[in-house]
């Protein structure tokens, strides 16, 4: 056990549940177990395992309610179940942004084939890639640059981000739908 002068208070399950639940609700981005332990619970003696158990209980408590506790790439967050989306859309007069096929194809290429260069994207799609698309994806924080490919010109390599996974409520890239099986593709 680490001798941490801050972690000296005991906390019962009831209070721990209340604090964790409140923290998950007020955060403006997904909250990880580490964040809960390091920031919210800095004064309390509590293990990661116990925090995880508490989260599991909270998630169970919200089964079948108007909101659900969802694990995404960068942590846990409360969101509405997707089956309520049609009814809830009435509340939102501003429609969610729509993305063009070009943008979605570029995003799919970066997500599935990362790290990938711009010219590799252009090669597969068969058309030039507009800078606006890369800019949009960068501004949304869905893609990032992860260095340069060591070929002439040292082109930038793109990869997807945690925010991308969060936005699509995924915990990891492995959760992305499987690519169409085409045995001939992988030579």
């Amino acid at each position, binding site marked *: 056990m680490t001798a941490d002068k801050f972690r000296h208070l005991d906390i019962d399950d009831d209070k721990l549940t209340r604090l964790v639940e*409140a923290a998950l*609700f*007020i955060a403006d981005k997904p909250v990880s177990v580490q964040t809960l332990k390091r920031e919210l619970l800095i004064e309390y003696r509590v293990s990661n395992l116990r925090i995880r158990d508490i989260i599991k209980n909270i998630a169970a408590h919200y089964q079948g309610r108007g*909101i659900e506790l*969802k694990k995404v790439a960068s942590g846990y*967050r*409360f*969101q*509405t*179940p*997707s089956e309520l*989306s049609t009814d*809830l859309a009435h509340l*939102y007069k501003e429609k*969610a*942004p729509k*993305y063009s*096929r*070009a943008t*979605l*194809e570029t*995003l*799919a*290429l970066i*997500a*599935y084939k990362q790290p990938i260069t711009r010219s590799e994207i252009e090669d*597969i*799609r*068969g*058309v*030039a890639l507009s800078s606006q698309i890369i800019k949009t994806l960068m501004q949304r924080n869905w893609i990032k640059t992860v260095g340069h490919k060591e070929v002439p010109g040292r082109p930038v390599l793109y990869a997807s981000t945690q925010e991308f996974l*969060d*936005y*699509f*409520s*995924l915990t990891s890239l492995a959760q*992305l*739908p499987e*690519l*169409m099986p*085409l045995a*001939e*593709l992988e030579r």
Partner: protein
Amino acid sequence: MAEKAPVAQQNNGKSGVMLQQVLPFAVLHGEAIVEKPQDLFIPPDALEIILEMFEGPLDLLLYLIRKQKFDILDLPIAPITTQYMNYVELMKDSKLELAAEYLVMASILAEIKSRLLLPKQAVEEEEADPRAELVRKLQQYEVIKNAAENLDTIPRVERDVFIAKVKLADNFVAKVVDTDVDLTELLAALQGVIKRTQAYQHHHIQKEALSTRERMAKIMAILNDTKNPQNYCNFSDLFTLNEGKQGVVVTFLAILELIKESLITCIQTHVYGEIRIALPQS
């Protein structure tokens, strides 16, 4: 129907292909388009929409192939090329800016077609199918096209799921973290002060003065200590032996300076008695 007639008439002279009774299925930049490529569905509104409908030559080719249920692995180059060319011609005729990629693809198709038409020589070399590279590209593109479509169906924040927002209680106050101050910042401030001191008072500040000042503050603190209600102490108590000669000198200088500044007074109640240092009686 009535408003379409003048358009047809107006375009009568411009388009040679057009028959008098035929209504154009689209009008673009004032020109009527009456012929459409075979097997290519064109929505009646405008050709620009069609151009936007396809993400490039690969997308268009895939459309043509899938539409006619051709086997992508055994690509019938001749009909596909004809249809593709029809489309490209149509786009060119309607003066739409055609992406260079479409023209490049047209020449690739033409080249494949001509190579397939060449009389088959005795199989001296195992030459690859001229279509192979194109087929591979089409497949590769189709996978990504499909992946993008799937990606679009995943429940998405703002569109399908909404994130809970909960307000903090009214009495909530964020923890304020003290500002970090770097020693160099403090020293820079000190330099500024010293410059001012010199400018205003022509003081010569020496290193010694500081420890005397520190000692002066310490003595004042002792005299003002709440545990010392009489506000005095013995002169001898102010000296600490293990500080050595230098410490004694510093303390003594501090006492002299404090007396000079009328911050303390010295009291001796009887001859040879203990000297007491006290705050001045006001």
